[in-house]
């Protein structure tokens, strides 16, 4: 296999490599693995595409992401060959026009790709979907796949804080965010199934999420009451979806398995659950000061009951099931707004 990317001589000492990576602006400030030829070639062997295949063009600088370049970044992140197709599929997904990579990689917002994986590959690849899946579980797949995608956006897409991206705060997911859905504990079809894939397919969905928004309750076991409170929590007044078009974007809400079971008993049909959440994800127009309220009225956001709904349609609230068995918690991944999540089947090497 002939690699065409530039070869660079670096120190063999890992600590000197780290310093060199910082000096070269390779990466995110966390130590990296060296992208040696054998590491890169092992990943390329697991790719369904040849090394020179142009997977996508990554903003903000419209860097051309060949599979070889992606493999280099994946090698630096420690991606295993079996997990490399997930990285490729995720980059293809976020390059779809409707994901709006151009907007999301440059905005002042904290939005970043958040990967949600469905299918049998979750366990095989160490993608976390149980306790502490959004940080702390340390599954190799979760930690390396998300990071590889983030490194590609940084090193190929040229996303640099304060330069090509105006993100005011960034967010922890900029080091990578890759979780699975605990499908076996979900009372509903999986996220991938609801998006048209078969249960046995490995699928990655890329959501433009602004961070993790935790919700907790210890006082109420009633599913409708809990969902009502979750809906109200999603509709926080400074949510992006109150700034732009209510018909664009999705907000992901992750239920812990214990709550999911309870919610599934009350709402066996996930569309009914989504409709209930959408109905209650609203706030009275009086909540906002007059300057904000005037804009909401001008944009026709206030309904006949004086409520301002977060989203236009139930399907814009996307439930998934994951997390530990401690109950009591849900987490939302709030939406940037001007972006639609994209899914791709994960295709391994032929």
């Amino acid at each position, binding site marked *: 296999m002939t690699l065409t990317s530039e070869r660079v001589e670096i120190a063999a000492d890992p600590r000197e490599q780290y310093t060199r990576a910082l000096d070269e602006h390779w990466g995110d400030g966390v130590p990296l693995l060296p992208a040696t030829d054998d590491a890169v070639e092992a990943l390329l062997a697991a790719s369904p595409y040849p090394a020179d295949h142009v997977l996508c063009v990554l903003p903000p600088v419209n860097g051309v992401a060949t599979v070889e370049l992606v493999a280099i970044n994946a090698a630096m992140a420690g991606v295993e060959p079996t997990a490399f197709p997930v990285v490729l599929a995720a980059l293809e997904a976020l390059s779809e026009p409707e994901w709006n990579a151009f907007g999301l990689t440059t905005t002042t917002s904290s939005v970043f790709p958040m990967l949600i994986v469905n299918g049998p590959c979750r*366990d095989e690849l160490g993608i976390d979907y*149980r*306790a502490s899946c959004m940080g702390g579980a340390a599954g190799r797949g979760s930690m390396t796949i998300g990071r590889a995608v983030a490194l590609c956006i940084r090193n190929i897409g040229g996303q640099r804080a304060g330069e090509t991206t105006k993100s005011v705060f960034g967010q922890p997911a900029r080091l990578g965010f890759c979780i699975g859905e605990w499908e*076996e*504990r979900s009372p509903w079809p999986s996220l991938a199934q609801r998006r048209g894939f078969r249960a046995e397919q490995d699928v990655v969905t890329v959501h433009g999420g602004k961070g993790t928004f935790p919700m907790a309750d210890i006082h109420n076991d009633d599913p409708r009451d809990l969902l009502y409170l979750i809906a109200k929590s999603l509709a926080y007044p400074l949510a992006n979806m109150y700034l732009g078009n209510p018909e664009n974007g999705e907000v992901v809400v992750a239920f812990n*398995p214990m709550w999911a079971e309870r919610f599934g008993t009350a709402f066996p049909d996930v569309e009914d659950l989504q409709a209930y959440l959408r109905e209650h994800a609203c706030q009275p127009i009086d909540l906002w000061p007059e300057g904000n309220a005037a804009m909401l009225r001008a944009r026709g956001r206030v309904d006949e009951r004086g409520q301002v709904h977060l989203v236009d349609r139930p399907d814009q609230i996307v439930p998934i099931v994951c997390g*530990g*068995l*401690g109950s009591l918690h849900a987490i939302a991944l709030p939406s940037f707004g001007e972006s639609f999540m994209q899914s791709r089947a994960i295709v391994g090497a032929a």
Partner: protein
Amino acid sequence: MSAHARFADDVTAAVDEVAQLLRADGADLTLVRADPKTARVELALVLDGVSCEDCILPPPMLFETIEQSLHRRVAGEFELRLADPRTATP
């Protein structure tokens, strides 16, 4: 051994440990299902051979004892469901 196979073995060992205690009083503890994919452990308390039900650990204490035995052996979280004839719901 895969994590899933280990789950089943670890649960079985924990169940056997508590079952031995119960058998002294004529009761038994059976494993109904241990599903590593859902992390659910379903057990059933059998009281058919028991002459003195009061001699068996009270339901909350039995549940806690089983849970502790499982925690000592099973890696990660699990959800324990115990069908105890002495209580209204399993």
